[in-house]
């Protein structure tokens, strides 16, 4: 998921022990009572750092996530598809912007967060390190990736940090069309020519497993989940969400007449859920380490945009300074 713990933890427990126990206790009580924590409120340093890491990782995912779809924006096959895709990618830019601003209330600047991304210190969702090879991938991303993201984001509207929760309310409201437009593309492809149907199946084949990996490592291998859940920064476990995603998505694939590429996927009457096959966690951790198929392309694109845009940002600042000097002269 965009917010799955991908970075290293920062030895924060040692820090906590030096904090005033009364303050920590009062803080924990407020969070346990589902109160919102606001920027100027006292908070444990570990909470602040975890939030900065999670929110900025979420923001980076939105921004890097523009690139795989942007790859097909200039080739969108109809005027309507082009307008919809442009609006969707623009939303992602907006969501990245809201999230960076939410993180900035924690005392870290956007430039610092962007620098952490560009130097490889910060992570973003593993899913965006896979290439978009055909137009059907745009459908699959909307259907699967946005579908998975929304499951994680809806509960975050009640996350304990006020600015993050408010950003998520806006994000969720705006994203409600994203998954639907993706599924609509898949429906058109599946009802289309044999070539189109084959593209749709191929897209599902390639995006299925990376989509399941988006939910993060299994719960028994997700060391900081418990603390994040106690702090209401995370509200459901990785495995719970993954199971929910599989249960919801299988009938949607059936409706399209597409086959999910997992021979172990079958309904388990006793559990009331679908069983599914083993996930290749080796691949997941490799992608987290930056070894995804197009990780280098994604980072290069973001770095170049930032570096090549520096003169524009500088020029606007210089103009503002000149205007101010003229006004006071």
């Amino acid at each position, binding site marked *: 998921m965009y917010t799955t713990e991908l970075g290293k933890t920062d030895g924060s427990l040692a820090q906590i022990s030096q904090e005033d126990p009364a303050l920590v206790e009062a803080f924990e009580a407020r969070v346990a009572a589902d109160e919102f924590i606001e920027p100027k409120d006292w908070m444990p340093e570990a909470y602040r750092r975890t939030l900065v890491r999670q929110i900025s990782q979420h923001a980076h995912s939105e921004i890097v996530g523009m690139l795989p779809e942007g790859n097909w924006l200039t080739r969108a096959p*109809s005027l309507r598809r082009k307008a919809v895709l442009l609006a969707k990618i623009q939303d992602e830019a907006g969501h990245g912007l809201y999230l960076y601003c939410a993180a900035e209330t924690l005392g870290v600047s956007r430039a610092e967060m962007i620098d952490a991304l560009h130097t490889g210190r910060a992570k973003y969702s593993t899913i965006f390190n896979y290439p978009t090879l055909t137009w059907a991938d745009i459908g699959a991303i909307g259907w699967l990736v946005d579908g998975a993201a929304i499951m994680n984001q809806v509960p975050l509207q009640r996350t304990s940090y006020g600015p993050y929760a408010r950003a998520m309310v806006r994000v969720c409201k705006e994203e409600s069309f994203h998954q639907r437009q993706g599924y609509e593309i898949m429906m*058109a492809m599946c009802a289309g020519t044999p070539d189109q149907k084959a593209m749709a199946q191929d897209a599902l084949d390639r995006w299925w497993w990376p989509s399941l990996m988006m939910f993060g490592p299994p719960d028994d291998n997700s060391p900081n989940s418990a603390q994040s859940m106690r702090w209401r920064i995370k509200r459901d476990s990785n495995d719970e969400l993954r199971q929910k995603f599989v249960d919801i998505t299988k009938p949607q694939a059936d409706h399209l007449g597409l086959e999910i590429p997992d021979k172990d996927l079958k309904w388990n009457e006793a559990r009331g859920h679908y069983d599914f096959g083993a996930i290749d966690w080796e691949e997941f951790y490799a992608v987290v380490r930056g070894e995804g198929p197009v990780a280098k392309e994604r980072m290069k694109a973001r770095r170049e945009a930032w570096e090549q845009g520096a003169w*524009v940002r500088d020029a606007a600042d210089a103009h503002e300074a000149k205007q101010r000097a003229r006004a006071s002269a």
Partner: protein
Amino acid sequence: MNRDFFPADTRTDSAPHGAMFDYLLRLGDDSLILCQRLTEWCGHAPALEIDLSLANIGLDLIGQATLFLNFAGAIEDRGRDGDRLAFHRDASDFRNCLLVEQPNGDFAQTMARQFLFSTAQLGLFEQLMLSTEPRIAEIAAKGVKEVRYHADLAADWIVRLGDGTDESRNRMVVGLDWCWRFIDELFLVDDVEAGLIEQGIAVDRSALRGAFDARLSSVLADAGLPAPVYPRGVRGGRAGRHSEHLGHLLATMQHLPRSYPDAVW
């Protein structure tokens, strides 16, 4: 967008359809091709906020293109809708001005192109709102508010980059220099438009030049930039004689519908 498909029975029967069709292609293709260029920026703009601004302009333009091209298809009455016209014409059948097909270059060149085009389009739409063809008047009335924003935003950037750093000023000079030769074509009146102007359907573009030049001088003065001078402009877009750039743009844009002609997307 296809819901906006304009029914053929509302066309103006008194208009010469060939000229009318051509005129609508000119209006629609200008917006379509410029939108296509702006989408190339998506995910790569100098700041996140600029990515959002450029996408907004692109969305306005593709809306205009859809309305004009669907109307063109209805006027032509041969079963072609906006998509058919956008994705299945060859470069020589496109009627956009040369300016909009110019490459993005850097952000200065993109803003120079946007400023020149949007300023001219604003003058045009302000008059087209009074067109005797009600459908054109309606599209222009919707578009004029969008275009006013585009022209203002681009002018803001011309001033900031012109009056920013030495580097931004140099880049702005180069960007304007690249685009300047295509200005004349924006105000060209040919036989296609002459007849429509007489009927009050089209606008006499040549009459818009004065206000355009005045706006240009004022913005360039604010930016502290010199106006480039050219003995004569380059033209040909309105007759389908384009720059080398359009073919590449269309090869990308039309790739899917051309490769899979039977597919519905």
